[in-house]
């Protein structure tokens, strides 16, 4: 049975009115929702009841070692769980990263985890616990790294172990992969092959910008060509893919323009293999 749901966009408040209209033309096939947008007013998510939803959080800090920060995670999980029960999304995802220290210092952004056995053990336990708690498939996303942390495992090995031992999925952010490749000088195609592609459930596409010679995932520009090429390469491998989401946080275009970007991604995903483009070296 196919797991494919469709291509869609990330929900932003700017699009609320347009998404609330019942006309099918202005509605994506799937909508990615950040749960914290609805923590204060959970009933607002009912407006999106007839669109398939996937939840994407940024604040669970799955890699943070046990400590005082657990209280924050617990509370956030409670809020997410309440929203999950209300909206019944298809899956819940977060980043394989930390956003706060064990003692509770908030970073405010995604900080990479140390890819070693200790982190693996920690995240394994958390994924299992969250899976039991939320009663939904859990997917973890690769982040755009501000710097590289080298340890016993590579990031791809960490994902492979997690997928194999918990049954969780991977949310593959192709933009983050491409930006990392540009910043740290590796081949994105070779790195792509190292990820557990059969467990990729969702793909993120977003725009990046170069700031002071370093590429950052600004989510403020159209999706780059390299990412779309990687998407075409992914097609034959990621057979469990459920959704492709185009993310945009800044310089928001009109809803129709963003949906057109998502449509382009869908066209590439369903293009015949013979027309596949070859990813150019960066």
């Amino acid at each position, binding site marked *: 049975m196919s797991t494919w749901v469709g291509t869609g966009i990330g929900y932003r408040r700017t699009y609320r009115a347009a998404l609330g209209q019942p006309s099918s033309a202005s509605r994506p096939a799937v909508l990615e929702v950040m749960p*914290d*947008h609805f*923590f*204060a*007013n959970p009933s607002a998510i009912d407006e999106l009841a007839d669109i398939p939803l996937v939840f994407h959080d940024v604040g669970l*800090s799955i*890699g*943070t*070692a*046990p*400590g*005082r*920060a*657990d*209280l*924050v*995670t*617990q*509370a*956030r999980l*409670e*809020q997410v*769980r309440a929203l999950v029960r209300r909206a019944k999304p298809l899956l819940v995802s977060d980043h394989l990263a*930390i*956003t*706060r*220290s*064990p*003692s*509770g*210092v*908030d*970073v*405010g*952004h995604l*900080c990479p985890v*140390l890819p*070693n*056995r*200790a*982190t*693996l*053990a*920690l995240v*394994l*336990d*958390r994924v299992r*616990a969250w899976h*039991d*708690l939320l009663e939904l498939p859990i997917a973890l996303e690769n982040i755009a790294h*501000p*710097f*590289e*942390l*080298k*340890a016993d495992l590579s990031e791809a090995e960490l994902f492979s172990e997690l997928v194999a031992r918990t049954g969780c999925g991977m949310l593959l952010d192709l933009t983050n992969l491409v930006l990392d490749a540009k910043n740290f000088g590796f081949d994105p195609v070779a790195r792509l092959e190292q990820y557990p592609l059969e467990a990729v459930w969702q793909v993120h596409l977003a725009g990046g910008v170069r*700031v*002071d010679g*370093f590429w*950052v995932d600004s989510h403020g520009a159209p999706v780059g060509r390299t990412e779309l090429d990687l998407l075409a390469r992914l097609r034959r491998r990621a057979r469990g893919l459920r959704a492709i989401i185009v993310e945009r946080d800044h310089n928001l275009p009109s809803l129709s323009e963003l949906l057109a970007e998502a449509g382009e991604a869908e066209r590439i995903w369903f293009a015949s293999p013979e027309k596949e483009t070859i990813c150019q070296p960066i």
Partner: protein
Amino acid sequence: MNERESSAAQSRVARLDDRKHECRGDRCVRRIPAVGEYVRCRPGGESLTGGYGRIRRHTTRRSRDRRISAAITPRKIFDVPSKAPKNEKKAADAYADPKEPLSHQPLPIADACSFLPIIDVGMQRDLVADHRQDLPRYGAPLEDESEIVGFRVPVLRDERVILNRPIVRIAEQEHTVERRDFSARTQQVRRGLGTREDMDRVQTASRFYPCLLYGRIVRPGISNWAASVSTRTVSSMEPEVGSRPMLTTFQEALIALATDPGWRARFRAEREAFLEVLPLDATERRALADIPTEAMNRFARSLVAKKWQEVARTTPLTLRLVPQLALMYRTWAESHRALATYGSLSPGAAEALRALPALRHQLSAPRYPEYAADLLAYEVLAACSRLDRVERLLASRWNLAEIAADICKGLLPIDPTDGATLFRFDGSGVRRRVRP
């Protein structure tokens, strides 16, 4: 709001960004509470309810030190059985109050113990700096503020302060309530086998170390997860990792490097020596040592820039009025690390609320418009209340709604209407009442 309600509301407002203390009744006490007096704490701009505590003076025989604390804790009613249950599990269940908000649940012992030394490294200095101005109001007759050694970190949930208690050191030792200081009966209480009398007896200590007294989390659901994850991850899944608090020091150090300019300076100046003193294993030490200085600096800058981007969305009018607000925020944020909180606010609004006291203080300088500080508070509180639907109050001598409307139109009020006004923010908007 009728006249009486208006008057009552006014009496509740001390200052927007400050703490106010009240007697247990409704009377507002704008003075230092005395030892033995009950106080309630309500951070302005955040609706704290139910917190109470009593100023106490503590002396422990063993360490011969004295502590004076304002134990401002949430109202907590223990339901302790009069007879000690035989079964340990049942006993533990009996101590768990199902109505108690989750955040009141104590931390596992291991977490609390591992937390305390870490906070000493970098965060404590910031906390002391942040709270120094508040200390006299907590009622301690401070002979010397330099004796302040520690704070419990405020953890906010649903706008309640869970732990927020400065501890003042008179003697040398800090964090001196150790496990060996507890009597055998206290140990039983900790295991859930004590009686009500035992519980009463150890209340004093619990004001300092509730996490040590109630080391077991027994509520089903997430609490169990939190309790188990801290013990299971090391021991059961990856035995080769050992019993050292896994990753904790590494992550604390990594995040301190990203958020604390002092750490980065030391890291830059003497990297190897700096890392040598941290209890890290070889992999962790190498991983930190391999981070390029420029990459870490860039990451640190990006964190502040990202936060400002979010804060700026909350304060567009003040930013138009005082473009230096961006620099003010960045300077402040670099030296004031945020503590993770949870609630319904967006990251930007939560950060704006955190920075509000400091920014408001800076904006009250004569070189800025007189109403700039209040306008900032007006914007931030309105945004926060719109998001989380919590009612907030602001007393100002200006009609800020009028000023905001003018700035929206691109007008800069140079002689705005001067009239004491009370603003009430909630999910539906802003209401104002001219104060008599």
